[in-house]
C-alpha cells in the first residue's frame, strides 16, 4: 500500500500546523501514488473535517465521548486501530505535545518506525527518508525508516499548505471505536497558562528574553514592548530553568520550535540549542551587550548595548512610530 494517513487532534483546529501536515501528506501521497486519508481525533469539529475533506481522499472522524478530551492511552489505542485498518505506508502527525508523545508508541503498535521533528520528507526507491535537525541544531541528518509504516511527526509549520486541493470533496466517515476502559493513566486537571493570545508557534512576532536579563522583572518590560507590536513573549531555556518565565513559553531545541516573521532576542547569547528552535524565523534581530555573542551570526539586524538602556527607549520610540 502506498497510502498516507494524517492524524490530527480536533481540538487544535485547522491551524497553520494542521495545514502544514495536510499539505505534506497530500504531496507525499502524490509522490507515492497513493491515497491520502485523514484521521481526526476528538470532539466534533465540523470546520476541521470540512476543510480536510477538500484536500484528502477520505476523512475518518473518531468523534466519541471517550475521545472528547485527550487521554494518552485511549487516543493511542484509537489511532492504532484506525491506522491499522488503513495499513498506510506513512502516518504523519503534527508537532503538538500529544502527537510527539504518541508517535513512537504508535509506530511500535503498528510494527513500523518513527522519527520526529521532520523538516523534509523524501520518498525514494520505495523508502521514506526524513531530514531532521540534530546535535542541537549543529547538523541535519537524513534518516531512512526501515519498517512500515513510517510514523513521522513534522515540524508542521515548516511545510507548505496544500494549494491544489482534491478533485472531489471526500465524505467524512464517523467511526465508533471499541476502546478499553479502566485506564492506568488519566488526565484529571488541565491548565492553560495564558501569557498572550496566540500560541507561540502561531505568533507573527516574538520577543524573547534570556539569561542576560538577570531576573523575572525584565519580562514585564518585554511584555509591555510586545504589546506595542502585537508580539508574544518567549524565553530561553536558561531563563525558564531559573523560574523567570513559564516553561511552556521556552523556545529552543528542547522547547517550542517557532517560525515568526520577526524574532527579537533580548539578552540571549544564542547557543545552537536555542537557535535550533528559531531556524524557521524569517527575520532574527538581537539586543545584546556582547558583540561576540553567537546570536549576531544569525541576525539580520541588531544592537550592541545593555538591554536595560535599550528597552525603555525602544518602548518610547515604538509607541511614537505606531501612532
Amino acid at each position, binding site marked *: 500500500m502506498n497510502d498516507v494517513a494524517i492524524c490530527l487532534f480536533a481540538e487544535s483546529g485547522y491551524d497553520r500546523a494542521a495545514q502544514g501536515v495536510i499539505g505534506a501528506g497530500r504531496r507525499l501521497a502524490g509522490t507515492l501514488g497513493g491515497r491520502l486519508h485523514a484521521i481526526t481525533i476528538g470532539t466534533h469539529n465540523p470546520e476541521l473535517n470540512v476543510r480536510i475533506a477538500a484536500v484528502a481522499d477520505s476523512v475518518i472522524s473518531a468523534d466519541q465521548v471517550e475521545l472528547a478530551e485527550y487521554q494518552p492511552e485511549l487516543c493511542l489505542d484509537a489511532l492504532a486501530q484506525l491506522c491499522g485498518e488503513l495499513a498506510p505506508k506513512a502516518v504523519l502527525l503534527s508537532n503538538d505535545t500529544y502527537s510527539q508523545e504518541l508517535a513512537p508508541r504508535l509506530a511500535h503498535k503498528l510494527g513500523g518506525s518513527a522519527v*520526529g521533528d521532520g523538516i523534509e520528507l523524501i520518498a525514494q526507491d520505495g523508502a521514506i527518508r526524513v531530514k531532521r535537525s540534530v546535535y542541537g541544531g549543529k*547538523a541535519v541528518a537524513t534518516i531512512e525508516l526501515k519498517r512500515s509504516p513510517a510514523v513521522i511527526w513534522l515540524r508542521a509549520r515548516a511545510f507548505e499548505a496544500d494549494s491544489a486541493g482534491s478533485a472531489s470533496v471526500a465524505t467524512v466517515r464517523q467511526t465508533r471505536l471499541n476502546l478499553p476502559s479502566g485506564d492506568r493513566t488519566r488526565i484529571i486537571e488541565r491548565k492553560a497558562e495564558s501569557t498572550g493570545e496566540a500560541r507561540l508557534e502561531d505568533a507573527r512576532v516574538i520577543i524573547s528574553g534570556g539569561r542576560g536579563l538577570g531576573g523575572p522583572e525584565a519580562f514585564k518590560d518585554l511584555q509591555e514592548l510586545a504589546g506595542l507590536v502585537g508580539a508574544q513573549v518567549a524565553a530561553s531555556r536558561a531563563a525558564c530553568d531559573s523560574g523567570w518565565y513559564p516553561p*511552556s513559553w521556552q523556545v529552543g531545541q528542547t522547547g517550542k520550535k517557532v517560525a515568526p516573521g520577526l524574532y527579537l532576542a533580548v539578552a540571549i547569547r544564542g547557543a545552537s540549542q536555542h537557535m535550533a528552535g528559531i531556524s524557521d524565523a524569517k527575520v532574527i534581530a538581537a539586543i545584546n551587550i556582547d558583540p561576540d555573542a553567537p546570536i549576531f551570526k544569525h541576525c539580520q539586524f*541588531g544592537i550592541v548595548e545593555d538591554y536595560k538602556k535599550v528597552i525603555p527607549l525602544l518602548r518610547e520610540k515604538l509607541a511614537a512610530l505606531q501612532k
Partner: protein
Amino acid sequence: MNIIICLKQILDPEIPVRDFRIGPDKREAVRGNANLVTNIFCENALETALQLRERTGGKITALAFGAESAEDTLRKALAMKADEAVLVLNDGHPHPDPFTVAQVLAAAVRKIGACDLVMTGRESGDWGSGQTGGLIAEELGLPCISFVDHIEARGEGTDASLFVKRQTDNGWELLNAQPPLVVTITNNEFNVPRIPKTRDIMISARQPITKWTLEEIGVNAAEVRAGQSYYEVVDLAIPAKDVACQFVSGDTLEQKVENLAQRVIEVTRSL
C-alpha cells in the same frame, strides 16, 4: 517506590559550533576534544527521582546502555545518591537506533525486577529522537506519560497512586496513574540537577557497578549490535548559514534605538 532511571552519555552539546565536526562517513559527529557528559534531561530525571525518594522513600537504580565510558555517567548518578547502578555494555554500533536502545533498556528493566516507575529524559542532546521512553513503555506493555516535570506519590503497595504533572503546548496537565508506568522528564525550575558533594564523589568511585553483556539480558545480541533495524542514518551534514548582521548605526544611544525601532516596525508591517 522502586525507580529505574535510564541515563545516556552523550557528546557535550555545549561545544561551540566552530569545533563541531562530522566524520568522513557522514553518519556521526567526531568527538575531537569534546567531553562526554550525561544528557541534561536524564539529569533532570534523576533529580526528579531523588526528590520523589526524599518524600516517599524507596530505591533508585541508575541504568545505562553504552560503552565502558558510560561508567562515568553512572558514577555521577551514584554521587548524586542513586542507590545502585547497572551498565549494559554496548560492544556494537556506536549509535544504535531508538528501538534498539529501548529493547535493551526494557530487557534490563525486566532483569532488574521489581519496579514502579521507569524514568527517561524527554530527549537527548545529541540525536534528540525523543523516543526512548515511549518505546520502552511499549516493550514492557506499560502506559507512558511524556514531558513530566513533577511527580507525587500517595498511598502504599497496591493502593499506590501517582500524581504526575506534565507540560503541554500552552500550560500543564495533571494525571493520575497507577504504577508501574514509564515517564519522560523535561526540565523546570525545580528539577535542576544537584551538584554532588565532593565526599559523595569519592565514595561513588568505590561503589560497585553491575555490568551486563547483551547476552546476559536476553536480547537478540546480533540484531542489537547491528543497531539499525528501525532506522538508519544515511547522511549527516552541517547546514550552511551565513547572515551578515547589520548593526544599527547612530552617534548616540537614542539614535541607535530610533533606528532599531524603525527596523522593527518595517519588518512587522511587512508581515
